[in-house]
């Protein structure tokens, strides 16, 4: 079986076999078809009322079918795959699955494609109704075809999200997982209506338009309701890419990225989910999109010096997410100290290795952010409207440097606490980063109120805002017309945080190196390994 022969994947075959027997998809799909007919009947009833439907019947029916199907397929894929993985881990059947001849990637693909089987039958059931809507002039044929392509990729992406699960037998009861899913569901239940209600306004802003238009079908469906699905666009460098085209590509890319990460976890749970090369690639991809939006805004009249703060915010969020996925755990760093340290040259190991402390990776991420903005936003802007003035450079470089410094410092804090305090360190690091982000702006607003609510910046308020990455970036975005918050406070804060975290990490590495050296000596193992010996930190 080749890697691309999805339908002969044993996990897909078995899932189909079990679902077919257990759920009787023929019967369930027939019931679903009757329900779809019922929806059509209800819409027709409202069409016959004096007030009628706000949009033509065919389009309303198509939107209702697709919205329902997107929600059903996405939900079934997410919860089906997630509960399957949860059961496999909790029942330890995953152990047997891990030692077969299939590669981890084939196992993950099999889970991802096999579990949402019933969702496929439901999607197939809607196709005749969509064809009827097309006859009724609901939307052009290519739009309907692309919406179905989007449905397929959205389902795959949702299924891949279901794969994200610990692969180690949990110490907690599985009930806790159910609880977290219930929480997610309740959150979605309350957030979705307000999200949909505001989606029209949000789609007018290029930043949410990119996120909503690529990750969800909402943009295309909203624009279809307003008459033309092609109006849902993703603005990048002056190009207006239809969401119908961009979304499937992005969703498949995200699914591939998650499958790769989880396959790696399945191969060895000690490795962090993302290889460092993938961390760089993902940071680069997000930064390129952010730079593309920034440049599109610039073409629309927004100064680059203002857009840079939005770019920095996107870069910081992406960097911190990549930090979570690419930072080795305490056990992984220990394993590197036991087995790998000294067997390969230090710098390649630090840049590309899996288990050495990830400080070099954070620095590369920061450099990617600066380089991408300069190359993908500043350079085209200079080419388009002549070289930027030195004054512009003085406005653009400080936020880029401050953001890079913040990203490296916060990530180092995370790595240090994860290494020194293990699992509790992970929680502590997230709490600490959240506090650094949230607390100073709150104190700043209190201080500001005490000084009569002046919004002119400067003084203690700006220093407090500058301590927090959110305060610094959002503060500068919100008061663009006024005096900006200086980059001095962020740089000093980052330097202090980095120094403290690096010191703690270094002390732990030195102490651990000694302990491991002693244990190796007690085992009568020759520590000298082939290759260049790395000097302990």
């Amino acid at each position: 079986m080749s890697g691309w022969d999805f339908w002969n994947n044993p996990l897909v075959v078995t899932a189909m076999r079990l679902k077919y027997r257990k759920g009787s998809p023929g019967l369930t799909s027939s019931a679903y078809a009757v329900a779809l007919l019922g929806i059509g009947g209800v819409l027709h009833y409202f069409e016959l009322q004096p007030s009628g439907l706000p949009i033509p019947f065919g389009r309303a029916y198509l939107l209702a079918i697709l919205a329902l199907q997107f929600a059903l397929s996405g939900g079934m894929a997410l919860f089906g795959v997630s509960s399957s993985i949860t059961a496999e881990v909790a029942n330890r059947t995953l152990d047997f699955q891990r030692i077969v001849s299939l590669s981890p990637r084939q196992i993950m693909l099999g889970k991802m494609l096999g579990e949402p089987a019933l969702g496929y039958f439901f999607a197939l059931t809607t196709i005749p109704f969509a064809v009827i809507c097309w006859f009724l002039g609901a939307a052009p044929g290519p739009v309907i075809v692309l919406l179905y392509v989007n449905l397929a990729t959205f389902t795959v992406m949702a299924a891949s999200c279901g794969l994200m699960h610990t692969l180690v037998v949990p110490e907690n009861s599985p009930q806790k997982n159910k609880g977290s899913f219930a929480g997610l569901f309740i959150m979605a239940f309350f957030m979705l209506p307000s999200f949909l209600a505001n989606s029209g306004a949000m789609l007018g802003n290029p930043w949410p338009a990119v996120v909503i238009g690529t990750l969800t079908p909402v943009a295309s469906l909203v624009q279809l309701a307003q008459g033309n699905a092609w109006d849902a666009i993703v603005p990048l460098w002056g190009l207006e890419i239809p969401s119908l085209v961009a979304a499937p590509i992005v969703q498949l890319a995200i699914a591939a990225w998650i499958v790769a990460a989880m396959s790696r976890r399945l191969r060895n749970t000690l490795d962090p989910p993302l290889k460092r090369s993938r961390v760089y690639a993902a940071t680069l991809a997000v930064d390129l999109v952010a730079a593309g939006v920034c440049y599109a805004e610039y073409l629309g009249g927004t100064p680059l010096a203002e857009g840079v703060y939005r770019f920095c915010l996107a870069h910081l969020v992406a960097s911190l997410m990549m930090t979570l996925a690419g930072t080795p755990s305490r056990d992984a760093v220990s394993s590197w100290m036991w087995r790998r340290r000294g067997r390969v040259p230090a710098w390649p190991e630090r840049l590309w290795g899996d288990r050495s402390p990830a400080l070099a990776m954070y620095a590369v991420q920061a450099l990617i952010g600066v380089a991408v903005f300069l190359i993908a936003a500043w350079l085209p802007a200079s080419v388009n409207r002549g070289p930027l003035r030195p004054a512009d450079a003085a406005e653009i470089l400080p936020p880029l440097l401050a953001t890079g410094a913040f990203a490296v410092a916060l990530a180092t804090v995370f790595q240090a606490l994860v290494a020194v305090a293990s699992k509790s360190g992970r929680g502590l690091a997230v709490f600490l980063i959240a506090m650094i982000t949230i607390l100073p702006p709150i104190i700043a607003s209190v201080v500001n109120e005490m000084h009569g609510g002046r919004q002119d910046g400067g003084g203690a308020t700006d220093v407090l805002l500058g301590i927090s990455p959110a305060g610094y970036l959002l503060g500068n975005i919100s008061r663009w017309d006024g005096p900006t918050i200086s980059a001095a406070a962020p740089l000093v804060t980052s330097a202090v945080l980095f120094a403290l975290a690096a010191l703690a990490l270094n002390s732990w590495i030195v102490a651990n190196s000694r302990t491991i050296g002693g244990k190796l000596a007690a085992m009568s193992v020759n520590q000298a390994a082939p290759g260049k010996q790395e000097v302990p930190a």
Partner: protein
Amino acid sequence: MIAVEHLRMEYGDNVAVENLSLEVPRGEVFGLIGPNGAGKTTLIRVLATLLEPTYGDVRIDGIDVLAEPLRVHPLIGYMSDFFALYEQMRTWEYLDHFARCYGIERKRRERLIGEALELVSLEVRRDAVINTLSRGMRQRLCFAKSLLHEPQVLLLDEPASGLDPAGRVEFREMLKQLHDMGRTIVISSHILTEMTGFCTSIGILEQGRLLAAGSVGDILAQLQSGMRLDVEIVGDPAALVGWLESQPHVEQPSVVRNRVRCRWDAPRDQLPALHRALVAAGFEVVSFAALDDNLEDIYMRISGHKTS
């Protein structure tokens, strides 16, 4: 077939396996003996590529299990003491699923599933849904799954725990058959009677350390244990203990349930002389028996009976 060198496994501050080196030749039935928490499961999971050790090299058929786990997978069959199954599948579907996962072609798959079901006496439950099977049947099905792809090495972690006495005997017979077919088997247990009779070599683990490893005969020779004597006399056994303490080659005489037990570290052909001396000393001998050490004796002599 299996080579382990300087294996160390730490879970946080707990050392589960410490500096363990071991070789299991092809075709051996290697019994891992030790109390709960000795490191048996950890060692088997490392061999099965399910755990990465903290340190050490592990090779199966010359292949590094850490570097090339996918090449090792077709060589090994693994059965854990926690034999979870897919409850909604039928018996044959379960085996078919794993046969597909091992890339076995359709025709061969059908034949192998039939053979495996026959070996574990489950052919009549071929179409039964797994959640209707008894514990013993589930265990046998799990074992059939481990054999399906004809692995060279079987890694069995407490495979007979929970089986009734008849099931244990049946299971032992199956293992003997597999041994006769030339498979290398690593089997762990803390129930020594389970292992007696078919292990060609053993390893005694305690607190993560391998106290002894090799064939039963070799370990006995290493221990210079000779044999045990069991003597029953008419009258006070304490008097016999006192007399035996003064005899050469006799060690650790003690009274066990009104009989006297001791160790004899001289050749077997010198025993008649001891018997004659015993009678000449006026003891009325009811029975005088020489017993060879079994696994239990070896384990009790080597082990400090500690868990990690």
